């Protein structure tokens, strides 16, 4: 175990032409810079996986547990913990004394990983304005009782792993907005960071192998999350009952145009040599139906990625390629037969085909920060 010093300062791109040319010697300085850059990427460029809209129109309190959002994501290769920031509103028609919001994480096997809580809002009369909201920051943990936040046991998430999250309100809790990010592992050679070198030091194979491994893991599994869509509540989730593809945000449009709601995704300079100008992405859809389809359409209306919903309420994964351009994309859905209720869609950059290559558990041992 050897700690590695990583500066958090963003630096200019490395002056490769200054240090690495055919007629120059390998320098400790440049090797050090490569290692530091890899470490900076691992430490400071962790994923941000969710940001809610933050509307001031917040559903009224509910006594029963209510799901407010779902999303899926793939953890980065150096992810260690999850930090959740809630903005909570006061209850507006409840009588409980301890309402709270919650983010719960499960893995692909449906196994419970941990929770993050935000307790707030036991006022009898709520005003939905900033002065009456409360901000809570919480790390993912485990608790035997949902109401005992202080008993939480810290939970480390696994790097390079698919996860699903559910954001919910309990006991009249009201969530105004949520943001979720990953926190990286401590810079340490045991965690896969590159060791420092010095002038006069031996040129070892590991000095190169480590940054090569880091670069590969980062590029394939550390690419940024791209877009989440979710239903405001399960009760208001859109239900598709015809074979006509309809925009999932306004639930009325059937065409694609600049007038229709969709996200602009910037994928410029995010393509590898081998991918020939395309960026591998993963789309996961949470829906309930037996013959539904959710499509990602480009600005011409062409289907880029399509996920079939066939087996009831669950997450449906699909891989695809997007061009390395900046463009607007729309999400459409249809029920080819029967009905389909759509709850959430998440899209991220992910080189799934090569995932197994870099995700060596023996290599990536987890050590985390003690605190956020």
């Amino acid at each position, binding site marked *: 175990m050897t700690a590695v010093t990583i500066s958090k300062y963003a630096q200019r791109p490395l002056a490769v032409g200054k240090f690495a040319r055919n007629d120059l010697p390998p320098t400790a300085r440049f090797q050090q810079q490569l290692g530091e850059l890899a470490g900076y990427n691992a430490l400071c460029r962790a994923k941000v996986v969710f940001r809610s809209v933050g509307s001031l129109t917040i559903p009224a309190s509910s006594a029963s547990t209510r799901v407010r959002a779902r999303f899926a994501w793939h953890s980065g290769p150096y992810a260690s913990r999850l930090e959740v920031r809630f903005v909570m509103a006061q209850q507006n028609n409840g009588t409980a004394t301890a309402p709270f919001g919650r983010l719960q994480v499960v893995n692909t096997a449906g196994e419970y990983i941990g929770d993050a809580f935000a307790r707030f809002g036991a006022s009898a009369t709520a005003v939905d304005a900033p002065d009456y909201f409360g901000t809570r920051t919480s790390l993912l943990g485990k608790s035997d009782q949902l109401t005992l936040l202080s008993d939480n046991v810290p939970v480390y998430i696994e790097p390079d792993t698919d996860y699903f999250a559910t954001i919910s309100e309990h006991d009249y809790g009201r969530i105004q907005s949520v943001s979720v990010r990953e926190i990286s592992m401590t810079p340490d050679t045991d965690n896969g960071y590159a060791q420092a070198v010095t002038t006069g030091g031996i040129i070892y*194979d590991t000095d190169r192998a480590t940054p090569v491994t880091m670069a590969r893991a980062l590029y394939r599994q550390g690419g940024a999350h791209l877009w989440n869509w979710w239903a405001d509540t399960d009760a208001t989730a859109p239900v598709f009952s015809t074979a006509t593809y309809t925009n999932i945000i306004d639930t009325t449009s059937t065409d694609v145009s600049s007038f229709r709601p969709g996200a602009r995704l910037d994928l410029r300079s995010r393509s590898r040599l081998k991918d020939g100008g395309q960026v591998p992405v993963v789309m996961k859809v949470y829906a309930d139906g037996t013959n539904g389809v959710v499509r990602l359409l480009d600005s011409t209306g062409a289907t880029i990625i399509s996920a079939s919903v066939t087996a009831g309420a669950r997450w449906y994964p699909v891989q695809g390629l997007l061009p390395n351009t900046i463009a607007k994309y729309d999400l459409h859905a249809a029920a080819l037969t029967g009905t389909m209720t759509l709850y959430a869609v998440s899209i991220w950059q992910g080189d799934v085909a090569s995932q197994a290559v870099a995700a060596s558990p023996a290599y990536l041992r987890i050590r985390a920060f003690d605190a956020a």
Partner: protein
Amino acid sequence: MGTTLTAKNAGSIASVFVIAIEGYEFLLTTGLPAAAVTAWAVTDWTQALGGAYVDLDNEQSIDPYAPIGGGGKCVIRVVPTAGDRFGIDTHRKFSGAETQLVESIHRGTGTLKVLSTAAFDASGYVYIGTECISYTGKTSTVGAVPPTFTGVSRGRFSPFKTGRIPETNYAHDHRVTLDPNSVLLQPVVSSLPRVWRGRWVAIYEHRVVDGVLDTHAEAHLAFAGRVVDIEDDGKAVSVECEHVLDVVQSATVGRQLWSANVKDGVYLKEFNSFLMIDSGGQAERLWVVSGTPASAYEMTQGYYTNEDLHARIEAYWAQALIDGDLTGSYSIYVDESGDSPRTVIHWSVSTSFTFIVPDLAAQLMGFGELGNNFGSVWVNDSGNGGARDFLSNFPPVRSIVDKSGIIDNGRLSFEVTDERGTFISQTDSLPAVFDSSIDPTRTWGLFLFDGNVTILAAYTVTGTTIELKNAKLSPVNIGPAYNDDLTSYSVPWDDASPGIPVRQILVLSAPTASFLKLITYSTGTVGHNHESFDALELGAGLAIPGSLLGSTFEASCDALPGATESVVSIIDKTTTLKDLIEGDLILRRAFLNWHNGTLRFGSWRVPTRDAATITLDESNKATPADTTDDHRTHSRESTEWQRPIARIYYDRDITDLSTNDGYRSTVTLEDSTAVDDMGGSGPLVTIKVRNAFGEDAGVGANIKSLIANFLATMPMFSRPGRILTRTITPTLVEQIALGDIVLVTDNTVRDSITGIRSVEEVPAVVVRKSDTPGGGVEGQDKASDPTATVELFVTSFSARPEANYAPTADVDDTYDAGDFDAGYNSLTKVLRCYGYRYGDDGSVIAPLFADAEYFPAGSRVRVTERDPLDGTTPQYWDDIVASQSVDDITLTTGLSGWDSTKAYRVTPDTYGDSTTAQRLKSYQADTADALIENTGAPYLYSGTFGAAQYAENMNSTIGIELPPDLHGTDGAGRDVGTEQALQRTLDNFADDKSAISLPALSNVVMTNTTFVNGWKLLSYTPIFLGTELLSSDVWRELALAPFYRSSDGSTVQLRVSLCRNSPSGATVNTVSLGGILDSATWSTTNTNWEVGTTIEVDCRRKAFSGRAWIVIEGTYKVETRGLALCQESERLYTNNWWVPI
């Protein structure tokens, strides 16, 4: 014909010296005056004096712990010629006509205003200090306009020019000062030169061919410096000069920093009020108002001394009496007759009074206790109606600055007096982290308040009133916490001091290279000495004439280790340049030296054969300076610089310099092996780095990155080295610079491995160089010979192998001509490679070889797939080069299974399979046995700091690739292609691949249908922007585009703000945004939905935690679903640096 320097480097020449002294219209020469004048024909000089002798002893050395050294000595002897003109000029006290400047002139001022021009010629020269100024006319006093010299040309006869293009004469500032801290003797303007010490001196060596001198432009600048002393020994005048390196070493910055004292009194703010009640009634309130008082019951917001307050209060009481609201008669004054002064309210007629006073005013007058801010203090007394005195409980004080800041919404405002120096606005130049809420319409600066606290404040001049407004604690961690333990700042009544001192602290923020250029060029007259880098105020820069710096100096700054990394220098008092930047240079392994007529920075490099520029052997020795025929090289094991332990001080607190000169943090670095080898202890070097702070400070050079660089080269100086001293032929003097790497071949030096005399091509660093140019000697017929000696540093590990990168050539996958398919001809087994991909980008530097030429016939090569799908199993072949020509490599066996859809790279085969010649390049060892493939001795990392010239974007467009594992294995070459691929991929990840994307579109339309007259809050969310630290030099933006429309066709606006804190407000209308980092506004009348134009907002002032807020507000009738685009940018950076007003 060439130049003098070219000829000197080529062999022995005949030469003379020509000397130019600033502001002196005669050249001095060791040769014939007429020839000198001819050679300097295109300069100011048209006259010359002979009889000069130059005793020049150039001596420079570098020391890893003293990066700014001296440059040697020079004495010019001038025997009487031309009627002893030079002796008379330098020694007479009578200076012809004299007057004084009445108005300061900076270096660009074209008009001289003086007391009188009467005694001066109608046109000619005048002298001020060391500067000569020509004029073409003069005026007498006209009305209020003083006498003036007109048609002025500044900096005449300046031996060094500015760095402008084209160069211009170098002039000086001449200040008329009323500053009580200055000597109040104003600059003398005279018709003859009066001042000699401090004049710039240039000594040029001119080759003489057939009696003709090389021209001034062709001559070699042998010495640059300034006059420090003039003597006369009865035979000749001696002019002693200091070298420009010594000038730099002792130069100071921060001489004119602004300072003042807080004005006596207290600042009363709008809405404060006084109220007087007595037994006869109650007066109207006396209100403090922000504008002009409208009645006797209003007073203006601002500063009030006790006297001011007393007068205003008495007027208030008098008016109330007139108005019949009070019955008593009152006066107020300070009684100093007792042991302790007290404020007295003398009153009569009424039987009681209650006077309600704002707390700060009460504290000033002694009615309230200092520091107790309760809003107001009640002062009351009662009696029988006779005259009585009511005394304050506490002594009055002269001045109060309320630290709680209640007077200005949490910020301080106070007037100052006794202003000195010049305030420098840093509104545009404060490091990004200083404050997110600086009002850019004001002029901001950082100040040291009462010697205790650093505050950020706006410098405001209103008429004759100077205020520091909106002052708040410096957000930079350079002073103590501003906590409640500190008492209010007050000045006791009987304190004779000028008041609470406050002075400006200059903060220079720039990339290191720009910072050094800025400091050296700046004269105080923006643009005088350089179009871009002469930008600091007077006293903040060194004002080295630009022609001594120039492109060579600037390139050397750019080539320094860490040149682009940010540095923030805090200049809190007059400081020598050495003290200011020495620590930074040491940590960067940099030094300043003089070579070929310019100043330049160099950097320590590990001596390697490949880096050597010249070989020193028996053929280029010469007679040493102090002996006649000893040509043997002296060798000694030296521990002079051996410091296996380095203690680095940083994080300087300028408010507590009494403790360890203010340094709060240290880090100790140790080469433990070296310490153990020295018996368990070793000498320590202490390095104080003024401009480095802890990472949490958020400003300046980051100690972590500096230390990493220092550590990387520490072994060079943590172990003993050898110093070789030998002579060199004078032709090499100007070819070798300090810090250069040379190869030493010497029969008299013992080999460090065998101990036997004779070494061959041992790489060494030139660490000292001394030479005397020789020439005529006063009183002797025979000229002295030139001599030159160097000292060379051989590191403890210089004898071990160190080599260049294993070469790389990329196959040209676009080449399909003839039988070629993606760069490979399977019929002829020829690979077509890209020409100069790894030599250079083809535009900046012309490499010696094309990439393919690094693989001559017989080379063993490995052709490997670039960016394979699976990094563990790339496609590759090993082969032998059959022949090679230009960009083509012909293989012996050929590449079966060539896939034209892939790209390939040529590198050397593994170490064991490579040829002996190929093994002169670098290969990798494994960590198990530190050997290459269990047999080969390992290669070592170099300390060479890279090429001086390089293309920053080299190969940036050739694709992102994930190198296969086989390039990182035991025995693989450390190839340059993989090295560059790693850099591209890692930088691409930092810039693009990891860039945060957080669009969020609402299922429900968010709209403003209720609030007509402003912004309605529609949504806000916390957002994470990464935990990296952004700076003014490297930052990111957030590209935003909303999905929105107008619901009724009226003009609507949508505003998205990136904030540090969450908004506040009891309603959603017109909320207060918490620390706006940046914001963007869209406007439309379109009733169709649209994605608004992308606007980038600046993220650099986000919190270090990465936490921020996105706030969306809209005007009446706007509708939105939120942000269709919320995309973090790549890293943005610039070489720009700030320019103060």
